[in-house]
């Protein structure tokens, strides 16, 4: 669409929400209407005025037969034909279907049938588009192949513990967890009070108060071997708690890192690193990043995956650990 069409379409989208909200021939506060539309009072007022404000010889049309009354911060619409919202447009339906397709990957097989039912129900809420005829409906979808899909999968299926953890959160219950941490050789068993789930850096995490550690801990869901909802043990989420507090630097971290892992990435790989990390570019094109450092063993693995293209600059103990690990392989 041209710019004028895009602008008009954006206004039409807003007005098809605002006009039904003015149903009933009574005054409404503009901020109430703005809340329904999800826009500012100024934008909604401008949209409504656009409908009735004519310039030159432009005829009044539909809005000549109705009255739109502005009174300070109130507005009233008389003889409103558009008193219901429009059904979901095809693109709105696709957005919900995309979300449902993602949720379908995250629920138990039993719940998958419920997702299908929700999908069927939401399709009934969409406008009934006539049979497609491309020459008559330019811009409409020319064939039924789904053009979009989405997945959080990153090498393995969605962790089966996700729906169970969600159940514990929804029911306000504690959970018993068998967890195998990255560097652990055996599972640990803990009772946790689940506070929320976070998807970050390609993985799902449970944020919970761990009764064993007496502190908030973050558990990668694909490392939870088993989780059981303790239906007879209530768990409250503290009012002051916010998931945002555990998302630091775009990652899920239970606490502030006490140390910094400083790595110099060689020019040959700097552009990959710069795509997702914040750092400094050196004169030769190398890229230096200060990563939050929570565990030395993680730091060694992280640096090694880049081979000679990544060099640990600090702390010295991690630098020595990397070199020591390599020398061990060479028989040194």
């Amino acid at each position, binding site marked *: *669409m041209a710019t*004028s*069409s895009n602008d008009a379409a954006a*206004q039409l989208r807003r007005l098809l929400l605002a006009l039904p909200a003015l149903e009933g021939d009574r005054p409404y506060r503009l901020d109430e209407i703005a809340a*329904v539309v999800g826009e500012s009072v100024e934008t909604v007022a401008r949209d409504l005025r*656009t409908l009735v404000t004519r*310039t030159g010889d432009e*005829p*009044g*049309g*539909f809005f000549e037969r109705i009255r739109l009354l502005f009174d300070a911060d109130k507005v009233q619409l008389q003889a409103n034909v558009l*008193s*219901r*919202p*429009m*059904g*979901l447009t*095809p*693109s*709105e339906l696709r*957005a*919900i279907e995309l*979300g449902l397709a993602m*949720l379908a990957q995250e629920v138990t097989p039993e719940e998958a049938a419920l997702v299908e*039912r*929700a999908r069927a*129900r*939401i399709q009934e809420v969409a*406008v009934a*588009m*006539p049979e497609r005829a*491309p*020459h*008559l409906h*330019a*811009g409409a979808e020319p*064939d039924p*192949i789904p053009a*979009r899909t*989405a*997945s959080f*999968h990153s*090498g393995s299926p969605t962790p089966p513990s996700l729906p169970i953890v969600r159940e514990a959160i929804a029911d306000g219950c504690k959970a018993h967890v068998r967890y195998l941490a*990255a*560097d652990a*050789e055996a599972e640990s068993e803990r009772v946790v009070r689940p506070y*929320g789930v*976070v998807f970050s*850096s390609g993985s799902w995490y449970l944020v919970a108060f761990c009764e064993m550690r007496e502190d908030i801990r973050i558990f990668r869901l694909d*490392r939870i071997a088993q989780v059981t909802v303790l239906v007879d043990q209530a768990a409250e989420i503290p009012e002051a708690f*916010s*998931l945002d507090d555990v998302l630091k630097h775009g990652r899920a971290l239970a606490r502030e890192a006490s140390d910094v892992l400083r790595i110099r990435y060689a020019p040959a790989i700097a*552009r990959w690193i710069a795509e997702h990390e914040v750092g400094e570019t050196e004169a030769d094109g190398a890229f230096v990043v200060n990563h939050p450092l929570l565990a030395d063993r993680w730091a060694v*693995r992280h640096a*090694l995956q880049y*081979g*000679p293209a990544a060099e640990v600059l600090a702390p010295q103990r991690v*630098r020595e650990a990397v070199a020591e690990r390599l*020398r061990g392989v*060479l028989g040194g």
Partner: protein
Amino acid sequence: MPPDRSSQKLRRWIDLIVALLRRRQAAAFDEFKGDVPQYATSSAAPESVLRTFERDKDELAAFGVPIEVSADQMGVRRLYRLTPGDFFLPYLELVDAEQVAARKRPRTAPRLETLAFTPDELDLVVRAGRRAQQLGDPRLALDAANALRKIAFDMPVPGPDATESVRVGPQHEDPEILDQIDRALRARKIILFDYHSIARDSHERREVEPWGLVFLARHWYVLGNERAAQSLKRFRVSRMRDLAVNQKAPHTPDFAVPPSFDISAYARWRQAWELGDGDTIEVVVRFTGVANHVAEAAGLGLPVAGAPADRRYEVRNTDAFARWLLRLTGDACPVAPPAFVATWRALVERTVAAYGGAR
């Protein structure tokens, strides 16, 4: 001051929607143009006014307004109709699962059906909408938000869930780019863009038939046939610049997507060592470590008969696989084939050298 075109168009669109909604039967343009004053009072030639209507109708169809076109007695498709039942949101009702059987009942003004949602269905729809809003695509987020706002006219839609957070980060410096790609996908139009091939660190103009758009793990990708290579490739949207959609013959698709194309088959994350066009080799790795991250890595390989500590991997990119193994140094090492073992050992030696060499 002349009225701006966007405002004129908006008023014309709404007048046209209302004019069509008020008619019970399909009607020819001449029958309802008097209800749309900008058509009725236009000083332009009748053919020009008809073209304006055709453009308005097509743009409203693209927006999602279900204007039905049918043939008149002469067999010419020039009758138009907009049925309230097709256009308006049905009345929505939240009921218990047991009540669903009796969910449809007629209403008046406008006469629409009533659709019942169970609390579980509504919860899923709301969560689906919130999820779509979190994928870093402004257009998708707007569509999802608008869908939820419409549903909220009749049913309670809770605010964002404070116990669930999804972080995927911004996808592109230009928020319009996914919108452009989306329109090209649906109209089947070729897209042209400068692509940063990060492996070669080169920027090249690409001409691609977009067959699908995939959000995978953290990023949006276009799946499409690159015209020059005539092969199906995956392009990360965040690495595209100066994207343009082919403007020639805007109402005619540039290509057809083969019926055999299955977008979900390509929506699979692959390890870096599985990617590439070369032949695969089988690499056998011996595991000695027992920590969980070592077991996870072993789990990506296949068992080797008679050697319980060994796993085998189908590797296409040997350099990437050698680097992947390096992070398991001390817990796993390759044992076959000899050429790969030599590659891996050379990588270890170069890395040691970067830290001052072996003692």
